[in-house]
Structures are given as C-alpha cells and as structure tokens.
C-alpha cells in the first residue's frame, strides 16, 4: 500500500461523468509505486473505507458548475468546501466524511486535494466524452502527477510526526 491514494470518481458509461475514471486509468501505470490509483462509482459516506490508511489523497471528479468553460480544472481542498454540514443527510459529502473520520479518530489522509473537471454532459448513459473534456484530460493527468511528485519530494516522514497520526480502526 502506497502513502498516496488517487481516487477517480465517476461512471464510465455516463458520458462526461466518466472523466475521473478515465483520468485514473491513464494514471495507473504512470504512478505505479508512487500512489494507489482507485476507481469508484460510489457516493458520499460509501467512499469512506477507501481513504483509510493513506497519508495523502487526490480526488479526481467531474463537476458541472455552469460558471466556467467546460474543460476547466477546479483545484480545491476540503477547506474550500463548506464545513461539517452536508446539504441534507441524504447527500452526505466529503466535509462530513472528514469530520466523522476526525471524530472517530480514523486513520485518514492528512491532506486531501480535489481536482474537478468542469464537464458538459454528465447525464446521458452511453454518451461519449465531450470534446472539451477529452482535450482537458491530459492536463488533468499532468496536474495529478505534479501533486503526487510534490509529496514524494517532501521526503520521508520523521518519527515525531508519525506519532501524531491517529490510531487506525481495529476491525
């Protein structure tokens, strides 16, 4: 198990929603030995298991804000998202998941970055990736590699820092 998780979210058979998945596939070999690249179509709290045990995580996903051109990459951290409150309990999201992990003292990444690609059509089953999304994928892949590279360069963690890590879940 690597220290870094790269998590591609989305659904490859639903048009642009597959962006995160295709980016993850492109990264699997490139990041071999540096990060674990995982794909998921799940949502909300169901993702929690995937983060356990990693020090860093990068989430790649599709978004549709309609406030910037398709193909734009939004670089976010959990701090950019509103705190604890999920929009409704049904849509439990990342901020809530992080708050829960902290509260339960789970072994969770200390640093999470989100790269979200602005997409055109995240709704059509069987739809192909749109042109702007296709064109933006190499840049998305490059940005992920860059982030992983930065963590690698920061060198090994010293012992004192390790002691501060929360205890893992015994299951």
């Amino acid at each position, binding site marked *: 198990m690597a220290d870094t998780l790269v998590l591609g*979210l*989305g*659904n*490859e*058979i*639903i048009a642009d*929603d597959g*962006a995160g998945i295709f980016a993850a596939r492109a990264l699997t070999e490139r990041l071999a030995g540096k990060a674990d690249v995982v794909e*998921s*179509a*799940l*949502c*909300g*709290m*169901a993702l*929690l*298991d995937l983060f356990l045990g990693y020090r860093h995580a990068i*989430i790649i*996903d*599709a*978004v*549709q*804000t*309609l*406030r910037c051109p398709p193909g734009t990459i*939004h670089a*976010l951290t959990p701090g*950019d*998202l*509103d705190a*604890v*409150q*999920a*929009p*409704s*309990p*049904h*849509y*439990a*999201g*990342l*901020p*809530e*998941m992080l*708050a*829960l992990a902290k*509260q*339960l003292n*789970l072994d969770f990444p200390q640093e999470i970055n*989100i790269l*979200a690609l602005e*997409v055109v059509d*995240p*709704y*059509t*089953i*069987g*739809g192909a990736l749109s042109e702007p999304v296709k064109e933006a994928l190499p840049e998305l892949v490059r940005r992920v590699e860059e982030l992983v590279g930065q963590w690698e360069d920061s060198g090994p963690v010293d012992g004192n820092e390790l002691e501060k890590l929360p205890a893992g*879940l015994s*299951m």
Partner: protein
Amino acid sequence: MSSKVTVDPITRLEGHGKIDIFLNNDGNVERAYFQVPELRGFEKFAEGRPAEEMPQITSRICGVCPTAHHMAATKALDDLYHVDPPASAKKIRELVYSTFFVEDHALHFFFLGGPDFIVGPTAPKAERNILGVLGKVGLEIGKEVIGLRKQLRGLIALAGGKVIHPVLGLPGGVARTLSKEDQQQFIAGADHAVEFALFSLKIFNDVVLKNADYMKWIVSDTYTHQTYYMGMVDANNKVNFYDGQIRVVTPDGKEYRKFRAQDYLTHVAEHVEPWSYIKFCYLKEVGWKDFAEGPESGVFSVAPLARLNASDGMATPRAQEAYEGFFKALGGKPVHHTLANHWARLIELLYAAERMQQLANDPEIINPVVRTLPTETPTEGIGVVEAPRGTLFHHFNTDARGVITTANLIVATQNNAARIAMSVDKAAKGVIKSGKVDDGILNMVEMAFRAYDPCHGCATHALPGQMPLRVRIFDAQRQLVQEIKRDG
C-alpha cells in the same frame, strides 16, 4: 439561508431534487412540486448489446444499489434463456443479496435517515448529520457501523468478485462456488449482522419510540397517505427481497392483486406530467386519478413500509416479532405514515440479517453445482427483486442470438414517484404557513421524501455546482419570492 453556490464534487448524487412551492394570497401552500432530473438513454444504450452483459452494465448505472440491478438483470436472464438455476445457486444469490441489504439499510438508518429522528426533526441544522447521531448514541456506534459495512462488503466481494460491479450472476446460476472457509466467513458476518440489527432496533425503541414528540410527527396527518402498497412475497405471503410474487394491497389492507413479475405490464402503467422527467407509475386497472389517495386512485407505494403492509409477516422469528410490534404500536395494518418507513427499514434490516444467517448455515450453500446451462433460444426476459428502495423490474427482449432489441427498467423510485410527490406537497402544506420558510421548515418538507430514501437518477453522476436540492417559493402572482439552495 444561503444563496451561495458551493462546488462539492464529492457529494455524489443519489438523484438531486428541486422543489417549487406555489403560495396563495394568504401565503399558504397551494401546491408544491418535487422535481428530479433523470438519466437519459439507457434503453438506447442497451440495444444491440448481448443480454449477458446486462447484469454488469445495469449494475453500473447506479452507484448506490449496484447489487440490486445486478440481481434483477440476472433473474431477467434466467427468464430470457428459459433456465431454472439449481437451488444452491439461488441460495448463494439470496445470501449475497441479503448481505447487501443489511449493508444498505444500516447505512441509511444511521447516516442518511437517522439524523431526522435520532437527532430530531427540529434540531439545529449543524447537528442534523451523522455527527449529531453519534453525539446521541455514542461514538463507538460509528465505528461499529463502519466496521460492519466493511465486513459485509468484504463478503459480497468474496462471492461476487467486486462490490461496486458484481460479477456473480449468470443465466442459470452463479459464477463461483463457496468453500467451507467462505461459508464460515458468511456465518460470522451474519451473526454480527443480527446482533447489529437487534441493537439498532433497541436504539430506535429507546430514542424514537419513547419520545412523544417524535411519535407525534410519525403519526401526524402531514406525513400520512392512504394508498395502495406493493411488495414481493414468498409462498406464505411473507416479505421476500430476492424472489416470489408481487402482491398489492388496497388502502384498507386487503389483497388486491398477486402476480408474477412477467405480468407486470398488465398491472403497472406510467403516467407523464409536463412538470417532471419522472414517469409516475400507477396501478393500471385502478387507473390514474391525479395525485390522489384512496381506493379509486391507482397511486401505490413501494419500499420498507409498503413491503410490510403488502405482506402477512416476516419469514424469520425475530423480525416477525418486530413486525407484530410495529403494527400493534401504530394501530394495525396497514400503516399509512410515511415516516414509519424508518422503523420498517430496521425491521427489514433484522430480517435480512436473520435470512443471511439461515442461508449461511444451509449446507447447500457449498454445493459445487451452481449452474444449469441454458440450452434454449432467448426471447424475452423479465426479472424482479425488491431493491432496498422498492420493487425493481428489468425487462429485456432479444433476437435469437441473445442481442437486446428492447430494454425497459422500472426502478424503485419510479414506482414510488407519485406518492413521493404527494408527500412533498402535503408536507409543504402542513408546515409552511403565511409564507414563512426557513431551514427548519424546509427540513420538515425534506423529511417527507427522505423517508422513502429516493434514488431518482438511479446513477451517480457529476454534481451540478448548484444544489442537490433547490427550493423556489412563488407568490400568488407566480413571482419568485424566495430561493433556498441546500448547498452544504
């Protein structure tokens, strides 16, 4: 209330909604509309593909209940190829399916629906989440839920290969056998699940049933509809998630119809409204009489409460006890209170866990013969299961090579759509007075649909930067006067 737009890419959707509320001159609600976007193109996507891909493909259209789609499609393939799987294969399928049910119902109760009742419908917004739930019931419970789900997901992966996109079902059987060691793991998981389910019911009993305020909301007219109910039952009319006949009961609880999945088109039809993408299912022989209650209206409901109403009991002993307690406490059958879905879900959680225990201990589960090879020419196949969110139909027609010519899915939330729309409308009318809408009031409206655990898009897809839920309030002149975005 905020109009800030937040991008939360991790808030994966289980379908997001929009509620438009129209007020009259007094500021009271004239009508509230609950709208949802819908994924497009499944039927077209399926056409021209081999039917055998359907269990994998349909499981990919939903990131919430992939196992339900996988199982419905697998059963449709049995029907398509006219093949009856051996008993061992049916039991393995049902064992995996029960495991999935435990996992899904447990998640819903504690993480998604629990905040409404364990924390309370009128609690401050900041507390109505899983942390608020754990604040009430103890942090250890959080670890317990996470630990149990991890164990159960491990079991599903053990039998099915992948949790997210299972590869278990084949026409006529399953793809792999279970070893004695696998069986032991399932037994351990089942024992854990039963213990957890009993504990969850105890929490519900202590925190909700003993709280007069909560009970008042559960039985209030605001959250009550007298409709037909649909659910799958076994030969003894007991609830069954994996196999059986579809039973429908009238608003006064009498059996109205009992039919095989293959006959669903005789009994279920779809109504289209100009304001919604969702097709509203109704009972064809009763007819569509608008969004109305009572025996003259074809509106029906599915999901936990409906399943309990449509059956004569549960097939396992402890769940049966809980079933009897449920109807006794709520005034007999049928129960029409939408919010009672939360309680019904926990009774089903216990049934799923007990059923898992029965099947895991069944010697046939490790029988090495797990498939009957199909030999007949495929034509038409219809499969049904009870998904956690209600009855789920898959229907495929193919050519003689087994290539799909037409496909139709009726998902649980579509079966429930008319009653959900009515629930949102009625709740809005019940809690919005003189034009006053704030976060607490909005939550009371949301509770009306959350109890059904709707999954409208039946897929996970990118989150529009706006909101999972946008509420717009219009005055009597149809002018937009207020907009609330639930944006975290």
